[in-house]
C-alpha cells in the first residue's frame, strides 16, 4: 500500500476502528492492541478496495475478528477475560458517561451490535453481513441492548421496540 494512502486511511478511520475494538474489548489497552493489528494487516496485505465504504467495512470486520481472537487467546490462557488494566475515557458530562458505562455493562456481542447500529448507522441487515450472524440475531441483540439501556438510563433513553 502506498504511504500516502495508508496515512489517509489511518487519519480517517483510526477512531472508527478503535471505537469498534473498545466496544468489544471494553479496555483501552486491548482496544489499542486490536487497532494496531488491524492497521498492520492493512499495511501488509494487498487488499484492493472498491470505494470508501469498502475500506470502512473491511476495517470494521477485521477489528471485530481481532477482538474475538484476543478474547479467545485470553480464554486459552485461563485468564478468564480481557485485560484487567482499566483506563476509562473522560466525559464532559455525567449523562454521556452514564450511557458509556451502561453500554459497557452489556456482553461484548451486544455492545458491538449496538455500536454498529447507533454509532455507525448500519442497518440490521448490514450488521448481520458485517459480523456474520443472522439478521434475527442482530435484532434480538439490539432489543436486549435497548432494554438494558432503558432500565439503566430510565427517561434519558427512549423506549424502542
Amino acid at each position, binding site marked *: 500500500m502506498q*504511504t500516502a494512502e495508508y*496515512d489517509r486511511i*489511518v487519519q480517517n478511520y*483510526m*477512531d472508527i*476502528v*478503535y*471505537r469498534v475494538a473498545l466496544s468489544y474489548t471494553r479496555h*483501552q*489497552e486491548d482496544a*489499542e*492492541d486490536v*487497532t*494496531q*493489528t488491524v*492497521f*498492520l*494487516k492493512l*499495511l*501488509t*496485505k494487498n*487488499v484492493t478496495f472498491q470505494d470508501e465504504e469498502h475500506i470502512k467495512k*473491511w476495517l470494521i*470486520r*477485521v477489528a471485530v*475478528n*481481532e477482538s*474475538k*481472537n*484476543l478474547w*479467545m*487467546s485470553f*480464554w*486459552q490462557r485461563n485468564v478468564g477475560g480481557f485485560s484487567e488494566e482499566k483506563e476509562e*475515557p473522560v*466525559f*464532559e458530562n455525567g*449523562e*454521556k*458517561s452514564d*450511557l*458509556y458505562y451502561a453500554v459497557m455493562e452489556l456482553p461484548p456481542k451486544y455492545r458491538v451490535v*449496538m455500536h454498529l447500529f*447507533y*454509532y455507525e*448507522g448500519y442497518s440490521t441487515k448490514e450488521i448481520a453481513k458485517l459480523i*456474520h*450472524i*443472522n439478521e*434475527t*440475531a442482530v435484532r*434480538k*441483540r439490539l432489543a*436486549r441492548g*435497548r432494554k438494558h*439501556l432503558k432500565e439503566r438510563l430510565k427517561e*434519558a*433513553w*427512549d423506549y*424502542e421496540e
Partner: protein
Amino acid sequence: MKNEKYYKEAFDEVHASYDLRRKVMDMKDNNKGIMGKRRMGFAVAFMAVFAVLMAASNGICYAATGETWVKKITVIINGKPKEVDMEYSKKGDLLIGEAELENTDDEVVSLAVASDGELPDDIEITYDGQKRGSGKKSAEVYNDEELGRVYLSKDEESGMIYLSVCPKEQSKGNEYLVQTLQIDITDDFEDGTAEGTFKYQGKQYKYTVNGTVEKPEINITVCE
C-alpha cells in the same frame, strides 16, 4: 432519533490516543512485526468448548445438485434436538458439510462437518459460534492420530488465513466434545510458507505449511 444522537454524542468523546496514532503511523516505516504491542505476537485463537453436541443422521439425502448435497440431520445442543439441513460439498478428497441453526433465542450456531469419505451417519461437528460460509475455502486435511484433523481456511472478506486444528471425536456415548484451535498465519503465509509452534491439549507441536490455501502441504510434529 434521540437515542442515536445521545449514543453518538457519548462515543464522539472516545478517541484513539496520540500515542496509538503515532505507533500506527510508524508501522509503515517499520513494516510488519515490529509493533510495540503488549501481546498478541502470535495470534492464537482458541475456540472454547461452547457446547456439547450430539448429531445423528436420519439418512434422508436429497437435492443433489452437481457437487452439492443436502442431508437432514438432527443436532442436539444442550439436550434440545434441532433438525437442520446440512449442505455438503466436495472439496478435494474432503466432504464438507455446513449448516446454520438458531440455538438460543439470540444465538445462531454454525456447524461445519468434515468427512473424508461418504456422507456419514456419525459426524464430527465444529461449533465455534462463527459462520462458516461461502467465504471460507477449506483445504486438504492433515490427519494425525493423536491431534486430529488439521486444515487451512481463508476468510475471503478479510483475507485472513487460519490453520485450524480439530480434534478427533471425544465421544462419550453419542456426545461430541468439540474444540477447535485456530492459528492466524496470514502474514507468515504470504510467501507460501509458514511455520511455528502451538500448544494443544497439553502438548507442544511444531507446524510447517507450504503451498496454497487450496492445496497446502501441512506437517505437524510433536516437540520433544
